[in-house]
Structure formats: structure tokens, C-alpha cells
């Protein structure tokens, strides 16, 4: 039973990992950019949520009302102001610039908040649990988080495949030049894509901040989880990313059950195994 519980926890946290991955995947899909600062932006959202909810005495989830637009605007400006200038045939500039961004964000957070771990308080929902037959206990919060993750991925899919904005994203991703000839402003489209990615990042950050403690240096760890979920699931497939997140979460929990110190290592090993036997991921649709 304990094992079943562990696995279920792993599945549920997979939803959060899928959220980490979704923002990363979206950006790569549209503009072939991998944002090394992605994890740090998630942590930034968590700290933003912390500040907003404590200073306005709000429930952390309500702080999303401010955090989401703030991160979306930040993303749009970041893309148009800096990141668009790095895009081109050379892989080095975007990589090094986003790496520099990562260093800046981490250390700015360190200066503003100190290295102390923080956590947001959402009240009773954090401990409320659902009792299922067989002695299983599922926390309401992880369950809700999982369901919302699925919803968000569904919404992203809808945007991509059923709206004119999504059409513009896919066209620009296929052929930037021809997309321009059709009247699509590349700079604006990329800015919008980053803004949407930041909306997902904001939500992921708040979820993370309620679920567990976080500190300024936690960014790279989240980036790596998101990245592993993307690679396991396969590039270009958001639902595959969800499966990837689930596999990652379950591997981590199984590892933890064997030895608490092996939790994260177990996840890395699952990733390396997939990389060794199915390098394109389990459900890949796009080439890197």
C-alpha cells in the first residue's frame, strides 16, 4: 500500500513537472530557444507570489491575479528587448544570454530575500486529504494541482491548434521568413509566445511555492526537472511532456522509497535510461 501511495504521489507531482516543462517546450517549439533561466523565472514567480500574498494578506492563489500579468509583461519585454536579438543561426548567444540571465535572477533574489528557504501558506487545503478504499490517502492539494496541470496543457493545445494566434505560432515555427511575408511580425509573435510561457511559469511558481519550500538557488533544479520531462516525453508533444513528468515523478518517488537520499538521483537515472534507449523521447513529434 505504501508503494501504491508513493506511486500515486509521483503521478500527481508529475503534473507540476509537466507545467515546468510546458513553458520550456512552447518556447522551443515556436522559436527554437531553450531558456536556461526558465527555472529561475519559476522561482522568481514564487517569490513574487510570496511578497504579494504577505504584503496584501492574500491567499497565495489569489496573488496570481497580480503575478500572472506581471510575469507575462516581463516575458514579453524580455523577449523583445533582449532575447529576440540573440536569435539566429548561432546557438551560443541565446544560450549564454539566458545563462547570464539565470545568474542575474538568482543573485538578485539572493540580495532581496536572503538565502533562507521560504514557503507560502495556503491554509487547510495543504493538509486536507481524500480517503480512498484500500487505505489510500490522496492529498487534495496535489490532486487539484494535477487536474489544473492537465487543464492548462489542454488550454495550450487549444491555443496552438484552434486559434489564429496558434496558427501564427506554428507558421512562424515552420518558416520564419515566409511567415513574415504573410504579414506576421516575428518580434511580436515571439514576444507573445514568451508571455504565454510566463503565464504558465507564474502558475507553476505559485503551485511550487505552496507545495514545498524554495530558495533563490532552486531555479536550476526546476529547469532540470522540466527539461527531463520534455526529453522523456519527446520534443514537440505537450501531452507527451505530461507523461514525461509523470514518469519522472514516479521514478523519484520509487527512488525515495528505497533510500531518501536517492530521490532526485533516481529521476536523473530514469532520464538517462530513456536517453540511452529512446533518445528521441517516447512520443516525439519534432526534431531538436
Amino acid at each position, binding site marked *: 500500500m505504501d508503494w501504491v501511495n508513493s506511486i500515486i504521489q509521483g503521478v500527481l507531482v508529475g503534473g507540476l513537472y509537466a507545467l515546468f516543462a510546458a513553458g520550456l517546450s512552447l518556447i522551443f517549439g515556436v522559436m527554437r*530557444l*531553450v531558456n*536556461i533561466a526558465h527555472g529561475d523565472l519559476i522561482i522568481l514567480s514564487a517569490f513574487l507570489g510570496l511578497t504579494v500574498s504577505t504584503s496584501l494578506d492574500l491567499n497565495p492563489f489569489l496573488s496570481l491575479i497580480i503575478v500572472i500579468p506581471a510575469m507575462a509583461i516581463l516575458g514579453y519585454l524580455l523577449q523583445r528587448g*533582449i532575447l529576440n*536579438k*540573440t536569435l539566429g543561426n548561432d*546557438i*551560443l*548567444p*541565446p*544560450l*549564454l*544570454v539566458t*545563462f*547570464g*540571465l*539565470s*545568474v*542575474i535572477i538568482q*543573485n*538578485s533574489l*539572493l*540580495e532581496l530575500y536572503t538565502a533562507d528557504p521560504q514557503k507560502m501558506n495556503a491554509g487547510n487545503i495543504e493538509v486536507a486529504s481524500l480517503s480512498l478504499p484500500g487505505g489510500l490517502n490522496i492529498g487534495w492539494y496535489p490532486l487539484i494541482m494535477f487536474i489544473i496541470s492537465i487543464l492548462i496543457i489542454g488550454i495550450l493545445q487549444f491555443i496552438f491548434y484552434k486559434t489564429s494566434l496558434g496558427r501564427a505560432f506554428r507558421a512562424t515555427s515552420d518558416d520564419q521568413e515566409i511567415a513574415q511575408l504573410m504579414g506576421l511580425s516575428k518580434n511580436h509573435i515571439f514576444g507573445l509566445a514568451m508571455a504565454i510561457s510566463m503565464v504558465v511559469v507564474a502558475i507553476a511558481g505559485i503551485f511550487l511555492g505552496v507545495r514545498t519550500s524554495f530558495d533563490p538557488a532552486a531555479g*536550476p533544479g526546476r*529547469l*532540470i526537472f522540466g*527539461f*527531463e520531462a520534455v*526529453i522523456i516525453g519527446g520534443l514537440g508533444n505537450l501531452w507527451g511532456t505530461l507523461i514525461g513528468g509523470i514518469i519522472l515523478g514516479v521514478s523519484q518517488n520509487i527512488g525515495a522509497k528505497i533510500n531518501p*537520499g*536517492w530521490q*532526485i*538521483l533516481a529521476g*536523473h*537515472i530514469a*532520464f*538517462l535510461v530513456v*536517453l*540511452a534507449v529512446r*533518445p528521441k523521447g517516447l512520443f516525439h513529434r519534432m526534431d*531538436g
Partner: protein
Amino acid sequence: MKTEYKVIQSSNASKFSSMIALLIIICLFLAPWWAGRADIRLMSEIFLYLSLASLWNLLAGYCGLVSVGQQAFVGFGGYMLFALTIFSGLNPLIAIPITGLFGALISFPIAFLIFRLRGAYFAIGTWVVAEVFRLSFAQIQSLGGGSGSSLPVAIVKSIASSKAMRESLIYWMILSLTVFILLSVYFILRSRRGIALIAIRDNELASESLGINITKSKLFVYIVTSGLTTVIGALIFLQKLRISPDAAFNVNDWTAFVIFIVVIGGIGTIEGPIIGVLVFFVLRETLSDLGSIYLIMLGFVAIFVMIKAPKGIWGYISNTFKIELFPLSRKLTKFKGE
């Protein structure tokens, strides 16, 4: 009179600078006699960073393999040094090159895995590998587990009897390694394989169609770089006398700073890391009191350079004055014949 042409690689500037370089190297070797202990330590640090930067530059600037996980090999070298000397009783001086061999060997399976990734995904993959190393070594209790261990005094003393002699020996090893690495990088790039690399860097598709085996070339460079980085790691922790997973596999110390050095100095040039490391240490000596603000500034400078001056300081100088100190390009000159 018939005019003939020949292809030359050196120029007056490079011949001049190679003489100056030789003089400088000789001076540096004599440092234990003219420099104080603190200065020797500082110079050792500078050389170690120059070595790391040159190797990273070879990988990223010439092979397009951007790694943010070289700390895996730095830490591996440190841990292998401790393991070999503590468990096998080897003299540190012998253990150090052996760590390099181990590093090169372990880079094979690593390459097998991460070469399946491209571009920025490759970069993150190297980071994951470094994390795997960090988490794994933290599990090894005999080497101190999560809190690490110190190098036993007996082993330290086996390097040389007097402290002064020990410091000098380590310093000479580091200096020799640095010179070796710079010359190796230079000769790799001068060689046929090197020209192939530069061609790959400029246009992968075209070079592939000319029959250049890209994967083999990149693999070769990756293995050599990993081995040498491992040796650098061994030397770093021989100096520090203490190792722990967080120090050994620290992203900031062994990757962020290195990247900064190469980017500011000039990526894709041999001279770049030299300039970069000097700038880095000047900044560090003057500004490091500022802690994380210092790092934020480094971040901004790196971003600024990448966007406005992607070829770095040396790139700017080289383009403006058209000079090369490590001559890599081949020029056609007139040569009067009979």
C-alpha cells in the same frame, strides 16, 4: 623574374609575440624565487582558470559543444585524486595524470548518452550529468559523504618535505599544465583535424558533404577536454586540501566564471581566454567584496558582450587591428623566385 606564391601561417606580430611569450613563461617558472607565497597562490588560480577557459573555449567556440557541466570532471578529478592517494597509497604526483586517464575513460559513456542531444539541450544534459556526479559522490561515505573530507597530512607531506617545496612543485605542475593546454589547443587547431573543426564550426552541412566526420572530431575533442579538465580538478583540490560534493561540483565556480572569462575575452579565439582571465581577476580583486552584486554585474556584462560585441575583447582587437598572436589563418604571400 617569375613570381611564386607560398602559404604562410605566421606573421611578424605572431613571431614577435611568441618570443615575448617564451620570455614570460621563463619568468613565470622562476616565480618561486621572486614572488611571495600569496602571489604564487593567486597566479596558480589564474592559470587554473585559464586552463579551464581554454578547454571550454575549444569545446564551445570551435566544436559548438556548449557544456554547462564541466564541473563534473573538475569534481571527478578532485575525488579521484583523494581516492587514489587515500585508498591506493599512490603518490599525489603520480595520481594526478592517472586521474586524467580516468576522466577521459568515463567521458566515453557520458558522450554516448549526451551526444544524442543537440544545442541547448546538450548543454542542460551536461548539467544533469554533473548533478548525477554530485549526488552520487555525496553517497560515498568513505570519501566523506555529503560533508566531504580532507586530504590526510601524510599524503600532503609525501609530495615534498618542506612546505615551500610543496607549494613550488604544485605551482610548477599547474604552470606546465597550462602551457601544455594552450599549446595543445593551438596545435589541435592548426592540424588537419583542427581545420576540420573550424570548417564544422562555420558550416556543418558543407563540411559533412566534404567527408569530414563530424561526430568523430567532436568526440575526440570532448574526450581530450574531459581528461584535461579532470587533471585540472585534481590540481585544484590538491591545493585546497579539502573536498566536498558541493565544492567539487559547483556550477558557479567551475562553469559560470569560466563562461564569463571566455565570453568577455573572446569566444572562438585562443587569445580570448587569456584576456578574459586577466579581466576577470582584476574585477574580482577590486569588486568581490560586493558578493552577489558582483555576480549580477558579471551577468549583465556577459549579456551585453554577447549582444553588442559577440566576439569579445580580443575579437574586437583582432578585427580592428587585423592581428593574430596564435596564427591560425593561412595567408598567401608573394615569394620571388628565379
